[in-house]
């Protein structure tokens, strides 16, 4: 066999492998959509890989009305977005003070904020339940957003300080020589330079907050405050059974907007992730 043919074969194999990879990631999602149109009996009477025999829209009606997916989706979105705004504001300002500004407690504070990276959610849960009950934050959106924000500060500060350290001091000095106030400096010079770092923080924290289950199931039991994650777990009737068709309908409902949002933002996301902030 000539080396040309060998190379052709290798290329073909690579293509096959890549197609297989794409299938491994895509097929379950396709299957989920077909499952969302199945009648309850189809889950029992037909093999899992069978396509939906018809379009049973009742699942979507159930998900939307009985499952309250409309409410849960909006809640997840509001909670995530509000905490992302706070996370970015806090972590950028703190990181800037910790790296570029001059003050006595700087070293201690850097260590103090760094410490939080190692704090697991479970450890803080019991006292948080007590704190929230005593301050009336239990079952409020404020409580949830605050705890989302607080638990993200350490990690975000860690990412952004890494990026800021690599930023030459000269840029900031030049700004000061030009007569910028500290706040102008922050907004006009530092912020634009940190675009990629901020996108990275946004993506990573979006991933964490969007997927949160433990905080929301502990601190937000009101149906008007429930997030998608808890909502999906709650598709159970009194005796703990599951309504699969409606579950997959809800999942599909929750996935579609994410899909479009992700496809639209995908370039910025991947750019931010690959831009270097994560490299510490």
């Amino acid at each position, binding site marked *: 066999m000539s080396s040309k043919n060998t190379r052709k074969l290798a290329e073909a194999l690579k293509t096959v492998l890549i197609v297989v990879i794409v299938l491994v990631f895509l097929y379950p999602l396709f299957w989920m959509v077909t499952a969302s149109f199945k009648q309850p009996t189809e889950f029992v009477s037909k093999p899992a890989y069978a396509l939906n025999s018809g379009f049973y829209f009742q699942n979507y009606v159930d998900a939307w009305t009985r499952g309250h997916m409309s409410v849960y989706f909006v809640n997840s979105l509001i909670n995530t977005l509000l905490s992302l705004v706070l996370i970015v504001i806090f972590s950028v300002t703190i990181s800037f003070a910790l790296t570029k500004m001059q003050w006595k407690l700087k070293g201690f504070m850097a260590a103090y904020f760094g410490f939080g990276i190692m704090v697991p959610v479970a450890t803080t849960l019991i006292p948080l339940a007590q704190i929230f009950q005593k301050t009336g934050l239990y079952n409020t959106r404020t409580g949830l957003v605050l705890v989302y924000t607080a638990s993200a500060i*350490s990690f975000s500060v860690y990412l952004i300080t890494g990026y800021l350290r690599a930023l030459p001091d000269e840029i900031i000095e030049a700004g000061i020589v030009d007569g910028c106030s500290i706040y102008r400096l922050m907004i006009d010079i530092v912020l634009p330079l940190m675009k990629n770092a901020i996108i990275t923080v946004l993506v990573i924290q979006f991933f964490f907050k969007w997927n949160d289950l433990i905080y929301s199931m502990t601190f937000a039991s009101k149906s008007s405050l429930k997030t998608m994650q808890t909502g999906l777990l709650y598709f159970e009737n009194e005796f703990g059974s599951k309504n699969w068709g409606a579950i997959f309908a809800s999942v599909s409902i929750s996935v579609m907007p994410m899909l479009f949002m992700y496809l639209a933002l995908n370039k910025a996301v991947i750019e931010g992730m690959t831009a270097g902030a994560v490299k510490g």
Partner: protein
Amino acid sequence: MNQVLRDKKAIAAFVVPGLILYTLLVILPIVWSGYYSFFDGTAGMKNWAFAGLKNYGKLFKDKNFLNSLSVNMRYVLMVTAGQVFFGLLMALIFKFWVKKFGALVRTIVFFPVVLPTVAVAQLFAKIYEIQPHYGLLNSLLAGVGLESWVQPWIGKSSTALGALAAMDIWVAIGFYSVIIYGALLDISNEIIEAAQIDGCNGLQLFLHILAPLLRPILVTCVIFSFTGTVKMFESALALTGGGPGTATRSLSMYMYDTAFTYMKTGYGSTIALVIFLICVVGSRIIRFFDWDYRK
């Protein structure tokens, strides 16, 4: 100029709001947990009483705790190794093999990252299904003549944890591959081409050129993955509920049961502290491999 950077008011404005929030909702709870761990009973109810070191003594005799510890550690090892290894592999495939539709392939592989964990778990529950009908996995095995491999994947202790780990790896491959791919892009093509001209094969290229350059990002990935897997809760709760038996019950789940279902606030706090210690010690050990950081 130092005047500007020493502006105390500005420092306070930058640091204090975040500091208060962080102290109240992250640091204080740990101290509080430590305090609670010396108590017995349910906080706020009549049986709440000081118990000294009793909870700590109980820990090492508690079969359920030791079981959860072992489950949790095995999970961390499997999932961290899997996420970073497959993330790396996928990043290398992106860089060297994917010629056309690169952005599309990366988008598809990244997509599971944005799916809610519970949704993914519901999906995998159906994939692993055996009764009343084979799920996707068992159908596939039966279809290619591997009937003897057909089994209740999440219904047996021996396979449940592995099945759970596979799901969590699948979800996160996209996340790690994109981070590592970013680092790969920063390595100049000249270095790679020079090595190829020198006759390096793929493995040598990876071991001698890429691996040393990728080390910092790999350590970062391991830390991400470690801190994510130590707290093991969401995916296990949604896929297996900790079962069968206690085969997939993590420390966080056991702590949750103890504190919120059994209403033993004190003992729950003790377990919570152990989870914290594991995190601290584990992160320190992983950091040890990051030369630059240690400097």
